[in-house]
């Protein structure tokens, strides 16, 4: 409008205000020494934003000297935070839920990934499995206390089965491929990259069962409650770096994949194959709370915990910092 019609500019310019103001952070921070934090995260695709933020130097830009602490999967990363070996961890909601049941003093500061197709059951056709119902009586590997555990249960339920109908075999994620090739199990409930790797390894023998409607996996950043309370500024910087990573990933998916391939030593083609299964956004909403409670009910019902009452998970979600950094990313109620 303004370009075409000078008269309007003349009139409207008097009505318009200028709200531009220079960034306050940059100037201040350059004089301060970088804060040191340890960040436990995983090689999984769910941790992409962590890898990007590290590689692209976004933490550095925010004045954080981040020391990576690599773990095989989120539960172990969370364990590092609980053991105070790390300040932040990337972890799915299931271990957080169990922590809540145990009363661990941790808190989620942001959700950095969500996916409905990251979890699946890979089965071997030669074990006589071609449909979900064939899992009955079969040996099924899963990783206890993780999304694998919860997804398996949800999947069985969706197909009219219970845990009693199968032979559950507790496996760590990195044991699954071996267990499948050695035919120690007939199927496994797992996530990427093991999921795709196992399927590729089995080739024609593999059958993969997805059910994107019964479960949404989330990956989150968790920290000790004390840490968050005492170092709010660090948390905000940390989150700001992750938000930058999110923007980078959205704009440069191919470069992001290259970074992931280099950082995780995983073939880029595999990373590209599973890329679209993940939604990398730094947010916090009511969904996390509902999911935590939902899974908690499951854990209580299936006696996976000795607790019988639902913990108050609102205490496990800290939204103030993210709201300060990026108000529109927070839609949860305090």
């Amino acid at each position, binding site marked *: *409008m303004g370009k075409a*019609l000078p*008269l*309007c500019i003349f*009139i*409207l310019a008097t*009505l318009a205000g200028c709200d531009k103001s220079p960034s306050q952070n940059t100037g201040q921070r350059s004089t301060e020494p970088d804060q040191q934090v340890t960040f436990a995260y995983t090689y999984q695709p769910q941790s992409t934003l962590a890898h990007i933020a590290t590689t692209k130097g976004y933490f550095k830009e925010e004045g954080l000297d981040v020391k990576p602490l690599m773990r095989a999967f989120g539960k172990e990363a969370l364990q590092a935070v609980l053991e105070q070996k790390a300040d932040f961890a990337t972890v799915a909601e299931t271990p957080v839920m169990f922590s809540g049941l145990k009363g661990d003093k941790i808190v989620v500061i942001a959700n950095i990934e969500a996916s409905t197709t990251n979890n699946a059951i890979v089965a071997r056709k030669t074990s006589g499995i071609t449909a979900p119902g064939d899992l009955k009586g079969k040996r099924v590997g899963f990783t206890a206390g993780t999304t694998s555990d919860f997804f398996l249960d*949800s999947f*069985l*339920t*969706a197909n*009219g*089965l*219970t845990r009693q109908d199968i032979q559950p075999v507790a496996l760590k994620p990195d044991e699954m491929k071996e267990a499948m090739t050695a035919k120690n199990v007939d199927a496994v409930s797992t996530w990427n990259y093991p999921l795709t790797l196992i399927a590729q390894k089995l080739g024609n023998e593999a059958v993969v069962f997805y059910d994107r*409607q*019964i*479960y*949404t996996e989330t990956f989150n950043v968790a920290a000790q409650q004390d840490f968050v309370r005492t170092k709010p500024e660090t948390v905000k910087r940390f989150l700001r770096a992750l938000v930058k990573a999110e923007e980078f990933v959205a704009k440069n998916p191919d470069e992001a994949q290259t970074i992931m391939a280099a950082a995780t030593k995983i073939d880029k083609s595999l990373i590209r194959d599973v890329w679209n299964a993940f939604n990398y956004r730094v947010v916090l*909403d*009511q*969904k996390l709370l*509902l*999911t935590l409670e*939902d899974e908690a009910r499951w854990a209580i*019902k299936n006696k996976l915990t000795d607790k019988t009452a639902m913990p108050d998970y609102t205490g496990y979600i800290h939204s103030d910092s993210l709201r300060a950094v990026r108000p529109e990313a927070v*839609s949860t109620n305090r």
Partner: protein
Amino acid sequence: VRISTRLRIITGVTIGALAILIPVLVWSFVEFKNAKDDDALADALHDNYFERASFRDQYFLYREDRLREQWIKSRTETDRLLTQAKRQFQRKQDQALLERFRTSVEDTAQLFDRIVANTQVMRTAGANKGVYEEFDRRLYSQLLLIAIDVRMAITTLQSSTEGRVQKHYQQLAIITALFAFTLALAVILIAQQMDRLIRRRLLPLHSGVESIAQGDLGHRIETNGSDEFSELALSINSMTGKLEELTQTLEQKVVERTEALEKSEARFRHFFEKNKSVMLLIEPTSGAIIEANQAAATYYGYEQQRLVGMNISNINTLPPEDVALERQRALHDERNYFNFRHRLNSGEIRDVEVYSTSFDASGKTLLFSIIHDVTKRKLAEEALQHSKTMMERTESMARLASFEWDVDANTVTWSPEMFRILGRDPTLGAPNLEGQSQFYTAASTHLLFDAVERAVADGTPYEFELMTVQPDGEQRPCYVKGFPERNTSGRVVRLAGLVQDITDRKHAEAQTMRQARRGEALLRLPRLSEEMDEHDFMQRSLTLAEDITGSQVSFMHFVNDDEDTIELVAWSQRTTAEYCHATFDRHYPVSSAGNWADAVRQRAPVLCNDYASYPGKMGLPDGHAQLLRFVSVPVIENGKVVMLTGVGNSAAAYDEFDLESVKLISNEIWHIVQRRRDQRGLEQQKALLETRVTQRTEALAIATDRAEAANRAKSQFLANMSHELRTPMNAILGMTSLALRRTTDPQLVDKLTKIDNASHLLLSVINDILDISKIEAGRLTLERVSFKFGSVLESVMNMVGQRVAEKGLKLFIDLPPEIARLSLLGDPLRLEQVLLNLTGNAVKFTAQGVVTVRVMKLEESHGDVLLRCEVQDSGIGITPEEQRRLFIAFEQADGSMTRKYGGTGLGLVISRRLAELMGGDIGLISTAGQGSTFWLIVRFSKAGKDAVAPAANSAAGSAEMQLKTRHAGTRILLAEDEPINQEVSRGLLEDVGLIVELAEDGGVAVAMAQRSHYDLILMDMQMPQMNGVEATRVIRALPGYAQTPILAMTANAFEEDRKLCIDAGMDDHIGKPVAPEVLYATLVKWLNRTRD
């Protein structure tokens, strides 16, 4: 500065401002409207989703199907809104939000679908219902998670659209205000200018112009300044000056013109008054006669003064309003020439021609009319027209036209009727002679041109019929007559003549002919029917129908009572000889009959002149004549279609007359045929009735007897038949046997052996026939005596052994010893018969190879045993079709079998029946050319250990020797009435040294027994005076005969006969024809017993 310049500046600035503001305003409004629409759509999506969410949550709570259906409806609405939004939302970020909303909503929908599906499962789930309930909660909680996404997406979308509405609203308000402000400013400025400049300067102008208008042409307006008003004042002053000059010039001209007019009027008056033509001046509006000259007064017969003042309508015979209309036409010069009828004072009406034109007289427009009397001319014209019309009418009625040919000019003139007769367009005119060739057929053209040539050459008139060709190709006959006309020098210069269309006449002639022929044919029909048989009559009748209708084919069908099938009864001779070579079923259903049977289907005549385009054409069988057209007529009697007659392929199209003719003829044929049939039927009926009365009377008389005897007779007949056949057989076989015993001549032995064989064959045939008769009569019963299976089979093997050896076959017996030893209760003879039949057949139909007999035990219980016997051959085999017929009486596999292999073909039928009576069945497995396996399953009761094998004929040889050695001289009484049999029996008995005394009757036998003692009595059953049974009873009562063996030797060979004998006190039964071995064995048995 000039006023216009000032105003132009103000207007220009305003327009410039508005030109900028209007597009902005419009753009702003459009943006605002779009934002508003988007916002409304976002709201609709929001409301729709939450309504849907409400259904979903209620469903989860109550599981009512109704809620699910509402949810589905709501979902359809969602889809509609989404489609609309996708089209409507322009902004990228809105589209992205919409996409987020859509995918999330779709996810919730899929989850809801799964909840619904799982609900169905839950309702019927049994033990694991808990799992489904858990899954139900799982799905719902997942759904709630996604619902959060949905809510966020729609809320964000709403706030986005709302923000836009706000923004654009503000923009719109500002721009509208600016617009209004600019306009107002412009209006104020213009108004101020107008007031200051125009109003003040206008006042002196106003008063000056008013003075001039009142006639003061000398008045001049004051001028000061140099603006538009000063210019205007100067212009008005100049105009006033010019006006003054013009007024003076005009007044001068008026004086001059008035003088000229007065002169002109005087001249006109003289011209008018003295003119010999009738002239009137008429007031055009009222029609009043203003002026009339002397000639007018004389013509109309009025005083001139009277005529002036009259109205023209008093003279013109047209209605006044029409006259007024014509006056207006003349006034406006639309028309100036009129033909009227004017009434004179004398009352006479005259035809007049009126020339009328407008005329300006002293400023008044009048009509100046000159009137000429044309009454005489008019009358002449009418007379001419009348005679012309009369002529044309006459020609038209007579279909008679005239022509004229001017030879020199080669021009042809036709009367109008000529065009009609030739069907030509009169506007094209008559063509010359050469051009007429197209109107006639080639032959006619030739004829015509020849005649014309002759007529022109030597003046010969001509007259003949020609055939015209109408533009549509139709040919119509016409009669032509030509008269040459000569000039004074004798040369033919003109050819006149007439042409008459004689189609109707020809048609009428033809129709009369057809009617006559039809009438004649109808009269001939009854006479024809007397001269020939029914078929010939119908064929002739069809020929008549063909003649009358000009057809080439014809046929006639009777329709059966069901009106569903028809029977072809006649074709005309010509049809079969020349046209139709198809082979026809004489009977077929209407449904498959051709189109001519439409008359039956529609119950109404069918007339088809173009079979090729006949609707519902069904086609014709091969060899059927090509059908061009046909007429097909049903004869309907008592509401039923009884007959169908059709003709076809006439040269000309069929018409109603043809249809009527076929109808009349076929009705007549039907009635004649019916009458004939009725008459013949009546005569036959009468004769039949008479015979029937006689027969019925006789039948009644014997009916009672017959009814009583029927049952008896059937049995008796069988028994008699058996007896009557066996008696001569006994003689033949017996005599042969005796002869064989007595001769050693090898040739004679050979011949006798052949007789013997043939006789045995005959006997077996007789036995088969009798057996089957018994089976058919339901009188076949089985014995129940004890026997050994092995003995029976041995006997059978003995009997076929010789044949097997003769044919060079191998015979294998597979009989387990325990079966051979089995003592059974049953009918060994019948078993033997069946086995013999199967084995005999196997041998008979096997040319080379092996015949195997296999016996096995299928079941054995305490009381009985089920045996299976198989007879396998390597013979000709039997096809499945033959197998089916094999066990049906009188249906031997093939008639040729009987001829080739002999036999009645009844053996298997009897065997099956016997097998069934023995509680089993019979069957076969066979492949033609690969041999057959016949199997027999029979059930027998097991006999006790003391079962005795019947006297087997195996001991025959020794029986004869025993009789010769041990019983020679024994006295035998032989009761036998038949002389040859007497001789046979006596011969056989005497051959072994027995003494025979003969009694030719039962009574004689009794008397002889009374007189002396006999060691054994052989008793025939049927004897003239006293039969064997009765004689036995009497003899048994005689002293010393209580134990004497009395043996029946009889042709009454049935089981019941045997029983009768035993019941009467006889000891045994020997059936005729008597086999010597059997006779001897039986005698030995009983004589030994007596002796012992």
